[in-house]
């Protein structure tokens, strides 16, 4: 039985607690937050026996095997480092750290202590994301990816967005990459998973949308376009937008033979056949194939729903399960460390370019 602790009792901690409680052979032994009332409310609702306001007290008394860090990103590095030094495996919510150096330091520390680390890129473990990964591994693309497109949009509405816009001291504004840093890692990590090199070329262009400018907001960049290129072979586009509709969360990947389109919102995976049909057949047969694929996706989603395996955060459950499996059964880590570092490196480069273009 793995003993689990959660540090940071805000919104995303609810999702962690819910998913952990659906996993066998583990138990949440304590939660911790600097604000005692936040720790108390989480422990009351789930319910969890112990809550703490001091990290050392949590580690001393509850003695967890794994710590989930769900605090704002500014504290990820220091808390993760401390937990690793105290002998705990660590699951860090996204974004993993504030920069690549911190990410590398944590990974080195974990490796030196024989401990495991992962990051909360749970979208990559949704049902469709796993199907896509399997198809790519089975060679459906016909070789390594030639081009990828990742869309990760965010609607600037709701209480959360209002809080960001209204409060000049809101914690997201204090991040090096501000709003982008807290959101884009899901979309960037999808690309990083299929890149081979350590340092691809990155060209970033970002700006504040006219919607935000009209509200008097000039600091937050909410429109971002990125081109990524490695070894004159694989390229990728990353798009983040707060204004385009539909607000896509899509990943497209193309090889030399075929392509795939993953739609996270609809939980659909569409195969794109590379070889065209002859003459007018190209106008009639592909739409039929697409229709069949969408119906097949619908059927699959219904079956998963009926089997009680279609939760909004089902990817998180799968990621946590795989991570725990890597600890208890020595199975491979669900997210490779090189992918975590590469995601951090791409994000660092994006923010650096945005800062320099802002300064220029």
């Amino acid at each position: 039985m793995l003993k689990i602790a959660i540090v940071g009792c805000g919104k995303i901690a609810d999702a962690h607690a819910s998913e952990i409680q659906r996993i066998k052979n583990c138990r949440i032994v304590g939660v911790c937050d600097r604000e005692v009332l936040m720790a108390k409310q989480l422990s009351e609702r789930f319910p969890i026996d112990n809550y703490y306001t001091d990290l050392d007290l949590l580690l001393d008394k509850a003695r967890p095997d794994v710590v989930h860090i769900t605090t704002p990103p500014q504290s990820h590095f220091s808390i993760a480092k401390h937990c690793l030094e105290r002998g705990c495996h660590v699951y860090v919510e996204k974004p993993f750290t504030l920069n690549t150096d911190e990410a590398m330091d944590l990974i080195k520390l974990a490796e030196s202590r024989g401990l495991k680390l992962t990051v909360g890129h749970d979208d990559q473990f949704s049902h469709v994301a796993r199907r896509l990964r399997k198809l790519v591994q089975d060679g459906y693309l016909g070789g390594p990816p030639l081009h990828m497109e990742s869309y990760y949009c965010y609607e600037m509405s709701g209480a959360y967005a209002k809080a960001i816009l209204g409060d000049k001291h809101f914690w997201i504004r204090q991040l090096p990459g501000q709003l982008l840093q807290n959101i884009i890692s899901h979309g960037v990590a999808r690309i990083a998973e299929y890149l081979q090199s350590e340092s691809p070329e990155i060209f970033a262009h970002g700006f504040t949308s006219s919607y935000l400018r009209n509200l008097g907001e000039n600091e937050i960049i909410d429109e971002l376009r990125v081109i990524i290129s490695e070894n004159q072979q694989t390229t990728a586009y990353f798009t983040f937008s707060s204004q385009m509709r539909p607000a896509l969360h899509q990943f497209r990947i193309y090889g030399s033979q075929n392509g795939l389109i993953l739609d996270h919102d609809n939980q659909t995976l569409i195969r794109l056949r590379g070889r065209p049909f002859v003459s007018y057949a190209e106008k009639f047969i592909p739409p039929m194939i697409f229709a069949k694929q969408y119906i097949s996706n619908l059927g699959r989603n219904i079956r998963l729903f009926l089997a009680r395996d279609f939760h909004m955060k089902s990817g998180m459950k799968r990621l946590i399960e795989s991570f725990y499996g890597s600890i208890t059964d020595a199975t491979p880590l669900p997210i490779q460390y090189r992918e975590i570092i590469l995601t951090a490196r791409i994000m660092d480069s994006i923010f650096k370019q945005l800062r320099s273009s802002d300064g220029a």
Partner: protein
Amino acid sequence: MLSDSRQCDPMIAYDTQILITGARGFIGKRVVARLLEYGFTKIRCLARPSSNKSGGEIFTASEFEDPRIEFIEGNLLSREDCFKISSDAQIIYHLAASRGEKSFPDAYQNSVITTRNLLDACVQHNCLKRFVNVSSFAVYTNQDKPKRGVLNEACPIEKHPAQRGAAYCYAKVKQEEMVIEYNKKHELPYVMIRPGVVYGPGNEQIHARVGIGTFGIFLHLGGSNEIPLTYVENCADAIVMAGIMRGIDGEVFNIVDDDLPSSRQFLRLYKQKVKRFRSIYVPHLLSYILCYFWEKYSTWSHGQLPNMYNRKVWHATWKKTEYSNEKLRERLGLMQRVPTDEGLNQYFESCREKIRHA
């Protein structure tokens, strides 16, 4: 001076420092206006910087320039801000809240942590004469009361608010507990205000007590139930009086108007006066059964569907219930400023305007 119709002997002088949190909100701005009307001269208004950023200015320029009003932008999550804004405040109208928040931690943070911070600051300043905590009907369980029973201030509140599956209910119950705890520990005087469904220009939604449009078509769930409406101006009257009336410390007041329409009457008027749309009436027995099965499915599926419709919600929202404002009339001596017919007309006009400008 208090207006003729509402003469009372306030427990504070007219130049007493008053603090209003959530002062830019739907009710808060009316509370400010009423205090000015009554003749109070030191009104400090706290509003979050993000309040109504996209909704236009709530206060007129002349109100901003009114020397009786001191505007402060601040965040109740900051203890420093709480300490600063509550200094010298003898009456606090605590209206700041998170409406419509679905996340439990966020609702809790914005209702309970903020209230705790403010109460702590009051303990430090040691000059508070009354803390008017604006809560909600959402705190009542309504579960063990017989059908058609009267919901009044003596009715029990939800013992297990998390099981209701509504973040707002959970946060409001915990907020009330916090206020009572500070009263017991530090003898901080308070009055608890629980408004029903506050309606009027600025809040044009059809309340869930009438029905819900979640599933594409409007499900009319209220049927012949009374809707516990209170027009926003009437609600503001009651809140203001709860802060200045003598001899009501520790009391709870429900706020509902007279002549409450049934859900069916309300919906019919809405369709006549605002816009026509299709709705399906769901009888009470059927809505109870649906809530029962939703609750069971949510548990069985480990939350694949969130537990947002359940028997607790049904009892609190759609069970046949009558409402009383007897205590409000007797103890606060309040007469309804805006009659319900007129309030509804103004509300429907505001709904039409909103649709025109959508």
